[in-house]
């Protein structure tokens, strides 16, 4: 348990993806079975048990120490599990420190009363607060260490090394503690079989097109085009009685979308965009968000926000794996398949004919249904491309629509994390609004922390330090007056109304497009510009 605790502790404070990968990979390499498998299941979210309530632990700690002293401690630390982990009086020799597998076994099988007794005994035996913290976080299922399931699988794949797609495809055939997986990755046995119904197939991703370079080299006749819909990408599987809906990283979201899965009556695996659709018209992303992140859904919610799949590929049909067929063949099978399901819950992403690249540019400028918010741009797929997991270079491209732009003024800067912790790299920017005194004042409209080069970051950082008005902890307010300040051209993908923001609007995916060293703040945009844009979007 100690090694696992150290891993969680470090993950929770490590900002960089690569460093996290190293930490997990090294842990998996150096830890014996079955502990490492249980750890992996914990990190991927595949370990299920009823979370224990933290209240009993508070009672237990107050039996062991003065409640007033505990209260001051809790008040100081702010987090119950952490406070308990720190103050718990150790009883040396009371017990033996448990292995991770013992803890997991107990959490999965023991009764609630037994679990409580076991946990108290383990806390008594553990020497380090870090270990007690990990135990309590595990027990309450609140391991927030900032690691995606995919990254954990990547770390396991690196043991081989094998491509992460192979691990992902196998994943749903595997069960914790994954001894067969590790045996294969370490070359001690054959690859486990992945032929189980309902499994996730790793997805194929597109590269961003480089307009200046790629078009000159590509022949328009080799590619087919379609809109890049702005929902979330999913994989719907209906196979030998097993129905699953996965995100593009393999997270199972079946329970949230029973309406979609019910619409299948043939076996098949579709790749498509999850959208909210009313009478064949795509609703906004905000509507889709009403359905995402819900643990349970009811008939009312499903009727209010009817979900659908706009399908663009088919990976399997009946018993046949179609991934080695060329795109044009798969497309024919897809069209026929969608037709036969005959349901408003599944429709087809139509191909957009074009004959030349300028033709395609015109198409991209004229968004579907006249609404720039429902598609992010255009997808290009080579007609002869097989379905290949990962992001191969050449067969698929995405050509994003030009973003919305606004000129805004830098108001606050905050220190970054990790590599950027010596830089002011998170920026809050604002636009002009009428002030109560009759003049104009700046109101924050968003935050951005990327879109600039390292060199530009240094320049902005210097500007922030040279123009600091006030400091509050890691945040500095920066000089922002009509004649002195820094203007950013901010690019963003969409706009929504928001009660949480003072300005009343929230941007989607804002980033710094250009630094306008040349522009005085008085020439930055006014909030009315954004409000007009929002009205246009809502009026459609």
């Amino acid at each position, binding site marked *: 348990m100690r090694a696992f605790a150290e891993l969680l502790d470090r993950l929770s*404070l490590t900002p960089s993806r690569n460093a996290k990968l190293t930490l997990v990979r090294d842990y998996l390499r150096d830890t014996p079975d079955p502990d490492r498998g249980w750890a992996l299941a914990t990190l991927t979210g595949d370990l299920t048990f009823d979370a224990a309530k933290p209240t009993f632990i508070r009672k237990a700690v107050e039996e062991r120490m*003065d409640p007033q002293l505990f209260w001051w401690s809790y008040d100081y630390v702010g987090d119950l599990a952490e406070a308990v982990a*720190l103050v718990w009086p150790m009883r040396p020799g009371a017990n033996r420190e448990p292995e991770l597998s013992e803890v997991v076994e107990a959490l999965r099988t023991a009764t609630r009363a037994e679990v409580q007794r076991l946990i108290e005994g383990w806390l008594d035996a553990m020497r380090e607060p870090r270990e007690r913290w990990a135990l309590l976080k595990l027990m309450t299922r609140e391991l927030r260490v900032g690691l995606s399931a995919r990254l954990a699988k990547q770390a396991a794949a690196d043991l081989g090394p094998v491509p992460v797609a192979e691990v992902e495809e196998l994943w749903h055939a595997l069960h914790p503690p994954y001894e067969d997986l590790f045996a294969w990755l370490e070359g001690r046995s054959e690859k486990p079989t992945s032929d189980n119904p309902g499994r996730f197939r790793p997805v194929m991703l597109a590269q961003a097109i480089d307009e200046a370079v790629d078009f000159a080299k590509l022949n328009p006749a080799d590619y087919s085009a379609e809109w890049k819909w702005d929902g979330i990408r999913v994989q719907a599987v209906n196979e030998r009685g097993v129905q699953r809906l996965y995100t593009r990283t393999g997270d199972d979201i079946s329970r949230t979308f029973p309406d979609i899965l019910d619409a299948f009556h043939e076996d098949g695996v579709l790749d498509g965009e999850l959208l909210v659709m009313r009478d064949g018209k795509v609703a906004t992303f905000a509507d889709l968000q009403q359905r995402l992140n819900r643990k349970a859904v009811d008939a009312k919610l499903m009727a209010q926000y009817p979900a659908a799949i706009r399908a663009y590929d088919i990976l399997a049909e009946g018993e046949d794996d179609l991934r080695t067929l060329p795109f044009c063949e798969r497309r024919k099978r897809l069209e026929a398949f969608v037709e036969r399901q005959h349901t408003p819950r599944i429709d087809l992403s139509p191909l957009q004919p074009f004959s030349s690249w300028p033709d395609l540019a015109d198409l991209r400028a004229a968004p579907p249904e006249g609404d720039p918010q429902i598609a992010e741009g255009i997808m290009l797929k080579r007609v002869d491309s097989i379905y290949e997991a990962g992001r191969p270079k050449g067969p698929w491209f995405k050509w994003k629509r030009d973003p919305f732009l606004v000129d805004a003024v830098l108001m606050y800067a905050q220190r970054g994390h990790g590599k950027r912790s010596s830089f002011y790299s998170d920026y809050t920017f604002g636009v002009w609004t009428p002030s109560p005194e009759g003049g104009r004042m700046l109101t924050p409209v968003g935050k951005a922390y990327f879109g600039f080069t390292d060199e530009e970051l240094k320049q902005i950082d210097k500007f922030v330090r040279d123009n600091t008005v006030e400091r509050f902890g890691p945040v500095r307010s920066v000089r922002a007056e009509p004649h002195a300040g820094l203007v950013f051209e901010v690019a963003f993908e969409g706009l929504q109304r928001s009660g949480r923001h003072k300005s009343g609007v929230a941007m989607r995916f804002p980033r710094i497009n250009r630094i306008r060293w040349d522009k005085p703040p008085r020439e930055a945009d006014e909030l009315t510009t954004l409000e007009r844009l929002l009205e246009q979007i809502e009026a459609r």
Partner: protein
Amino acid sequence: MIRPQDLLCPRPEGLYCAPGDFYIDPVRPVDRAVITHGHSDHARSGHGAVLATPQTLDIMGERYGAQFAQAMQPAEYGEVVNRDEVEVTLVPAGHVLGSAQAVVRWKGLTMVVSGDYKRRRDPTCPPFQPVACDVFITEATFGLPVFKHPDDKDEIARLLRSVAQFPERAHMIGAYALGKAQRIICLLREAGWDETIYVHGALERLNALYERHGVDLGPLAPATTGRKKDEFAGQIIIGPPSALQDRWSRRFPDPVAAFASGWMQVRARARQRGVELPLVISDHADWDELTATVDEIRPGELWITHGREEALARWAELHGVSARALALVGYEEEDED
């Protein structure tokens, strides 16, 4: 009947001894001062006469220049010095080089002012020596049960594991310039780290002072910009805590920010400062050391100078020792920098 407050009482300048006419660790300039140790919140410049250990006087000279007071009187550990009718003895506090408790005796009454102290072994200074007394006047910087400093060997081992795990990155440790930095260096040497340790300019003079006083720090080199970035890969660099997020850190390859402090026990503190590898190593007594010390000395009364007085006072009352919080101001939580 002699009362403790006739011998020592809190004043805005600090603890004042009327029968000996001196202050202990005064925060403002006074005529006569007894200084427990060299940290700047305890040892200030501009006093008339200063009594302290030779090491502490040396540290003050290094910080403030040779003329930091009008008269300096060194007292070795255990040496009895008379101040009017009062006997003053400095005994080891185990906090940093030269750190002492001030034992004050007058008309059969013994009061001990602990200064800052810890009970763990420290390769750079002799261990805390408990003295039987009527009144024990303690600090309580880490006076909450959440503060339980782990074994420093384990913390150093964690650091060295990280160095091995990330050979392409530099490990940059924030450590208070007086005491903590040198202790970390010694602990690294004891753990077998023989490589050159790179140090920030702010540490150089105090490192040299420690070496003059017989503390061997092994090979050190300045972490200057003259070196190529990747020369620091796999290396350990020590600087003051404020340098961690400073532009100074940019000269190192993808540095792992480590911070050696008792405050690192609390995750939110580590997160606030962007610390990736918190090292819970402190030069102060943790909760268990504070309570064990009170238990061991069993003073007639416990006075608490600064820190989290209320929790320690409550613990003392629950354990039958009458306690009083002095709430002296001017002593910062030094690791906060």
